[in-house]
């Protein structure tokens, strides 16, 4: 592990004052206490890993650091001076740069133009950009990072990993001294990740501080000089790498001694509903899954491990290149609409873009997937749809003025319930739920759990994708664990624990 050695070349020399300090940062949102008096010291030339499960407060922390959120309490110090970070521009000026998972590159500008977007004035001569100088400057920065990309290439033609590197280069070109990376390896391959680690090693040698957010234990072990573990918005512990074992870290993230968990009522699954063997797509290889009536099957894994792709392939949204899918014992129809009619339902991860028509009302959204079934003749009855919708609103406890409220104006939890209502109305028997509780409040979460129970009791099969391990463990009868676009393990009964999942997810 040459990269790790390089990164580890600075056994934290903490005699010097920290480059950046967060002191007692506190932040609440309505109903959520996202950060509880978080303090963090970030030193130059050090990789500071922040570990934590989903909802532990990592993204709120980043946004506060970047000036996208204002902290309720506490303050930030740079080199011992108290600073105000009210806007992203302030953060940039202080040398703090964040590389988000969604990139801010312009597809049809080239690498150099993207790096210097908004700062072209530095290369302007008589109002014209000295293109050669700009590319030369970009070249220098890329060379510094050990990247041999052509600076004339469009961002649109770059892969995800390359775009990420360009984002890093962009941050460095702004003389960033603190570089925050939010799950940088989530969507890139192993080899690309290695290049990223090498780059990080170079950066630390140049005395840049890296704040690295990840779940991947291997990366944490390899890169982290200092590791801070967040849980429920509070810092659990902050240690040097060698002070804590991997097992202890996992334990600290989960917050319970491993093995202890909420009791799960065992269910008695029925006949298989779906059986998939050897499914391959452009992004998946050799996926085999079985789902039976009356059970909840989890799909665990990191973001980008291929979980979403699996449900999309099962649902017929992505073309499969190999393998076969059987529904209730017979070959599954090929088109998506036919699979819906055969009883499949998908609750997509991004409900606003893929699940709902935001400008339309609850009735239109809740009935859209069941029109073929409810109105077999093709004639639509507003009154019947109205009745159905009221029924669904009552059944799911959707808080709304009425059936004609536009979905855009609903809260996240209620929007999610509308998506569920759509499939309930369609009488689906196999529910593929991709992150069903993301972005919904605690109350709605509980109701969604209750609904899943009801569905299963009614004989449906449910697949749940979740990044929240406690949720998975509590909800699911068994779970498949994914890594690098493959299924790497299957856990059931007592074997299904957070620790077991984490170990499969993070281990090589």
């Amino acid at each position, binding site marked *: 592990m040459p990269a790790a050695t390089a990164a580890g070349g600075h056994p934290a020399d903490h005699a010097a004052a920290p480059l950046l300090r967060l002191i007692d940062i506190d932040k609440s949102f309505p109903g959520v206490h996202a950060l509880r008096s978080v303090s963090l010291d970030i030193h130059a030339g050090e990789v500071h890993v922040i570990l934590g499960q989903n909802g532990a407060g990592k993204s709120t922390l980043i946004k506060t650091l970047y000036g996208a959120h204002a902290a309720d309490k506490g303050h930030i110090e740079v080199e011992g001076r108290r600073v105000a970070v009210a806007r*992203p*521009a302030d953060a940039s000026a202080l040398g703090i740069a964040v590389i988000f998972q969604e990139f*801010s*590159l*312009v*597809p*049809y*500008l*080239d690498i150099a*133009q993207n790096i210097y*977007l*908004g*700062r*072209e*004035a530095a290369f*302007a001569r008589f*109002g*014209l*950009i000295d*293109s050669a100088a700009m590319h030369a400057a970009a070249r220098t920065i890329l060379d510094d990072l*050990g*990247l*041999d*990309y*052509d600076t*004339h*290439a*469009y961002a*649109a*033609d770059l892969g995800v990993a*390359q775009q990420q590197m360009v984002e890093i280069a962009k941050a460095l070109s702004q003389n960033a001294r603190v570089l925050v990376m939010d799950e940088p390896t989530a969507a890139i391959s192993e*080899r690309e990740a*290695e*290049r990223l680690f*090498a780059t990080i090693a170079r950066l630390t040698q140049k005395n840049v501080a890296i704040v690295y957010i990840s779940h991947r234990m291997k990366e944490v072990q390899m890169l982290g000089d200092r590791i801070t573990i967040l849980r429920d918005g509070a810092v659990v512990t902050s240690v040097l790498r060698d002070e804590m074992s991997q097992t202890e870290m996992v334990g600290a993230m989960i917050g319970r001694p491993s093995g202890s968990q909420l009791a799960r009522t065992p269910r008695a699954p029925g006949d298989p509903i779906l059986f998939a063997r050897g499914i391959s797509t452009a992004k998946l290889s050799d996926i085999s899954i079985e789902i039976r009536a009356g059970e909840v099957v989890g799909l665990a894994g990191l973001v980008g491990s291929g979980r979403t792709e699996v449900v999309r392939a099962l649902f017929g949204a992505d073309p499969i290149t190999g393998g076969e899918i059987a529904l209730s014992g017979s070959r599954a129809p090929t088109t998506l609409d036919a699979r819906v009619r055969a009883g499949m339902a998908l609750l997509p991860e991004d409900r606003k873009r893929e699940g709902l028509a935001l400008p339309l009302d609850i009735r239109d959204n809740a009935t859209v997937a069941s029109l073929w079934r409810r109105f077999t003749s093709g004639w639509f009855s507003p009154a019947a749809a109205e009745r159905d919708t009221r029924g669904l609103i009552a059944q799911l406890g959707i808080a709304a003025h009425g059936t004609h409220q536009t979905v855009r104006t609903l809260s996240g939890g209620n929007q999610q319930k509308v998506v569920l209502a759509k499939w309930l109305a369609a009488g689906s028997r196999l529910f593929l739920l991709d992150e069903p509780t993301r972005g919904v409040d605690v109350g709605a979460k509980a109701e969604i759990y209750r609904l899943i129970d009801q569905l299963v009791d009614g004989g449906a099969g449910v697949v749940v994708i979740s990044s929240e391990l406690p949720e998975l463990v509590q909800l699911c009868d068994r779970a498949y664990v994914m890594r690098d676009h493959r299924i790497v393990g299957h856990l059931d009964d007592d074997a299904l624990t957070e620790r077991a999942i984490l170990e499969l997810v993070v281990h090589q």
Partner: protein
Amino acid sequence: MTAPTQSQQRPGAGQFFSAIPGAGILLILMLALFTIANPRFVSQTNLVNVGLQASLLLMIALPMTLIILTEGLDLSAGALLGLSGVIVAEALLAGWSVFAACAMAFAISTAFGALNGVLIAYLTLPAFVVTLGTMGLMQGIALVMTNGDPVGGFTPAIETFYRSQLWIFPMPIVVAVALYAALWLLLYRTRLGNYVIAIGGNKDALRLAGIRANLVHLAVYVLGSAIVGLSAVLLIGRTNSAHPTVGIGMEFEAIAAVVLGGTSFEKGQGWLFGAVLGALAITVLRNGLNILSVDSSLQVVCIGILLILALLIDRARKHYSR
């Protein structure tokens, strides 16, 4: 660093030949076919004709490229061309100097561009509808000013300018080439150019970079209208008179030229030179069919088929290069 080298990076400049758009392929084919069918097609006179005709279309297609790069559209360009010509002509007849008349047309075009821009950039109304509305306004004003009649009899200086030559090159071609050069510099060598592409590609990224994206967006429409307004001088020079409805339909032809050249309606994908290819393709098609005296009705069909074919070629190439 022992990391594998990143290969397969298509160089931006080298894309010129590796990715000749459908219009380019069709243009070459047409040039070959027309030359074989009638060698006069490549005579100097005819090439000058093609140049003159294409240059007027280009005067609209070039600014239209910038607008389409921002994921917009300007249906009012043709109507503005007519209106601006009428304004210049009427001002000249009223005894204004050529400079003052052009300044007036410039001012009014700019104002209309600003109206389009404000509605589209700041109120985020769809460009299609906004410019459809302003198209009516402009066309109406031109008609009302002239009572529908062509306006002639103004100073011959305008026509003299249109007919003049710079060395051996006719003035309209010089102007179009100059405009191309200017817009090329603007698009590829100034900040504003990057921002134009960024508006279509990722307006949020532009905002995040601290740029007043809406202002840039507005500026694109203002600039586009200003250019179209000034090109009206060439048009009335060509006809030695100003016609209130002369530009109607030219906006669609310009849009066709831009799209033929491989500029997409999405994500700021496109290139300025595509407008040149597209305008040449359309002009060469019409000119060649005229030279071969092909029936007008078949000419109409040919334009439609050319458009669809070029799009199909682009689509197919994109599909198989992935």
